[in-house]
């Protein structure tokens, strides 16, 4: 990483290859629309490449990368909202097959994407970073520039919204863990 910051092109290429899929995954879950997610991924990678010489390594590289990815994804969301053209993109789940022909996983994924689209960005972004990237609350707070408690409450709100949207308001069977998901982060 230090080599890339110092201007080493091949080092940057390695970093971009290492982070591409995770950046794209974050963009995909935030932007919802697949084409928009690809655009946001491209924008994020361009921003990383143009700015890496300025990166001072005071924070984790991944934190910086996800901050850029999140900004790019939210920019794409806002751009799409300005266009305000109804989409028939099947990634929103509107073209979900009615019968049982489609594989359950695909249907579930489309339903999830459609549900995520109904969760406001404010809550969706920390939820995606938490569940998709296994990111602790503290790092999400750093990425988004908000307090840790705000991260915690926003994720909680996002989960509530998702459960309601998906018609699954009840909690899952009891699991005796300190953390809501039983993994990393300060509860």
């Amino acid at each position: 990483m230090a080599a890339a910051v110092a201007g080493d092109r091949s080092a940057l290429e390695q970093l971009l290859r290492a982070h591409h899929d995770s950046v794209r995954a974050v963009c995909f879950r935030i932007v919802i629309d697949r084409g928009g997610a690809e655009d946001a991924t491209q924008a994020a990678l361009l921003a990383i490449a143009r700015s890496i010489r300025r990166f001072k390594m005071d924070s984790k590289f991944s934190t910086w990368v996800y901050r850029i990815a999140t900004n790019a994804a939210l920019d794409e969301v806002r751009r799409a909202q300005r266009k305000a053209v109804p989409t028939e993109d099947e990634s929103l789940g509107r073209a979900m097959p009615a019968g049982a022909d489609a594989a359950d996983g695909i249907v579930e994924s489309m339903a999830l994407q459609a549900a995520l689209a109904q969760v406001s960005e404010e809550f969706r972004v920390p939820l995606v970073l938490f569940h998709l990237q296994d990111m602790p609350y503290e790092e999400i707070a750093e990425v988004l520039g908000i307090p840790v408690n705000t991260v915690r409450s926003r994720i909680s709100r996002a989960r509530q919204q998702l459960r309601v949207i998906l018609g699954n308001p009840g909690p899952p069977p009891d699991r005796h863990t300190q953390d809501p998901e039983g993994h990393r982060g300060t509860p």
Partner: protein
Amino acid sequence: MTNEHDDRLPDELVAALRAVPPPDPQVREAHISAALAAFDEAGDAGRGSITPLAPRRRAVLGIAAALLVALGAGAGYAVRGDSGTVRTVTELPEAAAVTTVSPSTVQGADTSVPTVKNGSVEVPGSPVRPNSGLPCTAESDGALYVGQYLRDGVLHLVFVSAFTIEVVRADTCETIVAYQQPADITP
């Protein structure tokens, strides 16, 4: 109010959230190639600006940078022309209003705004600040940090080098705008 048990997502939902469709390999390569090209381009631009500042050029760019800091919350990007008036030469992206201001307007601005004395930029109470202690470094060795402003909750840093004034987001180090020396300013 919710407790942590209410706050869980069903495992199958978390699994679905993580199951992002894989990228198209060709699109992935295109993303990385474009980013590397941007990296090369940024490197060329950075090397081009490492040039000692001629006094007049430094003064002009210093004034422009000072105005930019003063007006950064949304006005324009201005520079003093030969007529003694201050005119907008370009606009900030994302719907920043383009305005024309008089020098007296700027004189009445915040006293923390940098000023130009004897051809060099000065920040009240201190000389031009070095780049240490900032979240982002300057693009080139010749660039100086001259000030900052807050816009939409995001801190923006202003750097001046021989031929450019550059505004950088402090949280991601992305360049927001890079203003090149206008043609009517001679060193």
